[in-house]
């Protein structure tokens, strides 16, 4: 593959913007060579090694290796269709619900392989929660939305304990003051931003270790977005957060580390500051400077 990469290096490097001594390039199919930067951390919460994802015959993710640290926000950016959402959904095995999807490689949570046949997805998803692109509260009351997870996992014995979990979760999500007087009203009646924070509270209620967020603010207005971003910053103290986003400013604001995906490959990982000020890969630089994507 390396000689293949060299053969087409020339035309790309004719672009004067790139310094060929530092920046690697892509092969004929746009596949990217080795990830550059620092994908692995000490004391990781989750580790991913050589992860391949296929939808039927088509390969969506190609040999991705990355760690998720404790108490950090890891942002995943990249152009549409680069596989960042697919990869995110591998982390709590949401891709299991897609029949044609096949995941290879190793993903661990606290050192345990989550794709091991002995692992049941139900407790896994309680430990790795997920917040989706569009707010998707259940058509139930606000209270029942939060109580859903604790109920199905049998986390509480009494009504009092459940009330407490609901209150704590809503407080952590910064929604308590806004909804405490109308817990019995339907969750679908809240505004978009409130609904998204409700979904975050719902994920928190089952006590996860990692929260996956798939473009959580793309359906929200700027004020609601600011509130969710504030919330993410607070949640970092207790959870590991992996966020997929299209808004680069958002990645810059909320995350400590940033990973840049391109056509199913992980191109570059580094501290958010380094990625946005001094990208080492020309694809990363092109993307964050708005040259494509």
């Amino acid at each position, binding site marked *: 593959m390396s000689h293949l990469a060299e053969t087409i290096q020339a035309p790309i490097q004719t672009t004067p913007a790139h310094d060929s001594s530092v920046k690697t390039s892509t092969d004929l199919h746009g596949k990217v060579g080795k990830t550059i930067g620092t994908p692995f951390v000490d004391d990781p919460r989750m580790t991913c090694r050589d992860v391949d994802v296929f939808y039927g015959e088509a390969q969506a993710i190609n040999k991705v290796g990355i760690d998720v640290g404790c108490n950090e926000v890891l942002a995943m950016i990249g152009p549409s269709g680069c596989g960042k959402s697919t990869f995110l959904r591998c982390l709590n095995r949401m891709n299991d*619900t897609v029949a044609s999807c096949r995941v290879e490689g190793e993903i661990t949570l606290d050192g345990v392989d989550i794709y091991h046949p002995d692992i049941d997805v139900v407790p896994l998803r309680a430990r790795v929660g*997920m917040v989706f692109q*569009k707010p998707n509260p*259940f058509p139930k009351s606000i209270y029942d939305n939060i109580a*859903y997870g604790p109920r*199905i996992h049998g986390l509480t014995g009494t009504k009092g304990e459940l009330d407490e979990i609901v209150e704590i979760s809503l407080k952590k999500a910064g929604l308590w003051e806004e909804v405490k007087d109308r817990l019995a009203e339907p969750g679908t009646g809240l505004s978009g931003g409130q609904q998204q924070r409700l*979904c975050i509270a719902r994920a928190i209620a089952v006590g996860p270790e990692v929260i996956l967020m798939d473009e959580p603010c793309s359906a929200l207005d700027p004020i609601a977005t600011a509130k969710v971003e504030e919330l993410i910053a607070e949640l970092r103290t207790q959870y590991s957060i992996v966020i997929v986003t299209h808004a680069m400013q958002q990645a810059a604001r909320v995350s400590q580390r940033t990973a840049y995906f391109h056509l199913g490959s992980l191109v570059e990982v580094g501290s958010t500051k380094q990625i946005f000020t001094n990208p080492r890969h020309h694809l990363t630089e092109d993307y964050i400077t708005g040259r494509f994507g």
Partner: protein
Amino acid sequence: MLYDYLLPLLLVLTAAAFMVGRKRALRMAADYGGIRQLHSLPNHYGSMMALACLLPALLLYGIWLSVETSVLDSRIIHELPPTLLSQDAGAQALIINDIKNTVSGNVTVNQDASIEAAAARYQAIQQKSRSAMCIGLLLLAPLSSFIAFRAIKPAFRARNVVEGIIRAALLLCSAVAILTTVGILLSVIFESIRFFKMIPLQDFLFGLSWSPQMAIRADQAGSSGAFGAVPIFAGTFLIAAIAMLVAIPIGLLSAIYLSEFASRGFRTVVKPLLEILAGIPTVVYGFFAALTVAPLIRESGGFFGLSVASESALAAGLVMGIMIIPFVSSLSDDVIHAVPQALRDGSYGLGATKFETVRLVIFPAALPGIVGGVLLAVSRAIGETMIVVMAAGLAANLTANPLKAVTTVTVQIVTLLVGDQEFDSPKTLAAFALGLILFIFTLILNVIALRVVRKYREQYE
């Protein structure tokens, strides 16, 4: 004869008019500097001319035919020999009928010579009239086409004219459906009013005994006629309830299985199979109920020491339930499918299992729509006729025992109206009253069901 080829000829003229109109529009476009100078497309001008050719001719045709009969009748009566003239309107109509039958050639008995003569005269006048109409039509069509032809100018808004006519035609079609419904409803209401003049409304609605045989002559004994509809409605609801007890669980659970658990391949095979059930004619279900299920139930009832009527509510209800299964499952399946994938993802993302997701998220979310579907199915069950005619029996028993024979509204309507009946006795008019109540009931059910379904649809948008 020209008359036989009139309509094909008219169509040929219409096609020609289309060509001519289109040609003229194209030529005008060329004269005025390009197709963009025309207000409408050449086809619109052609269509306009075709319609101008066809519509007035059809209108004339329709009017002529509707007026022709009465004009002919009155002329024939005028010319009848005095021996055939009668003061009685009924006898007069009979004579006209005889003449017309002779004209169309379906007479079996030997006719009076004067009637034969009148028939020949009738035929002659009719032929003359038809020829006149043909000539009129064949003059009118080119004339109206010519007027349209003259109207074709680049600024003429042919598209608006054509589309206006098409819209009117669409309106006419939907009006046919609506007016028919209104007509049926009105006829049922008027007949019912006649019935309620003879039998008081409260006797009908709250009477506990149904025995519609009336004495035709004053000296006839026995049949007094009792028109208490309660046993019939009780029987209807009993059978519908049994049907729903079968159809709701089976239909709903199969819908849940098909939409949430079944593999794609299984679903593509089984769903059409289930819908074939809906395609079986109800009369086939009827003899299945009467000849297979009813004896089976009677015999197995006998095995347990129960006395089961050979025409039991249970047999009819069970088979009707089977018939309604695809109705419930198909509607429920649609509703369950309409639950957004995002809700399933949200539930799975919290670590819920498939069963928990179905039970706690999908089913509650789909419930209003399912209720709407079930209500539609109920109104279907109440209105169903063939199965109950064949399997439920005629005895108007007021009972809640599904092993006994009961009767339903639809069965009674059938028995009241089948055979030679006089249409002014309470017995036959009772059918209209029953029909009216049935109509009102299913209408209310349908309105509620549609409102529930619509409200549910808006929930995710």
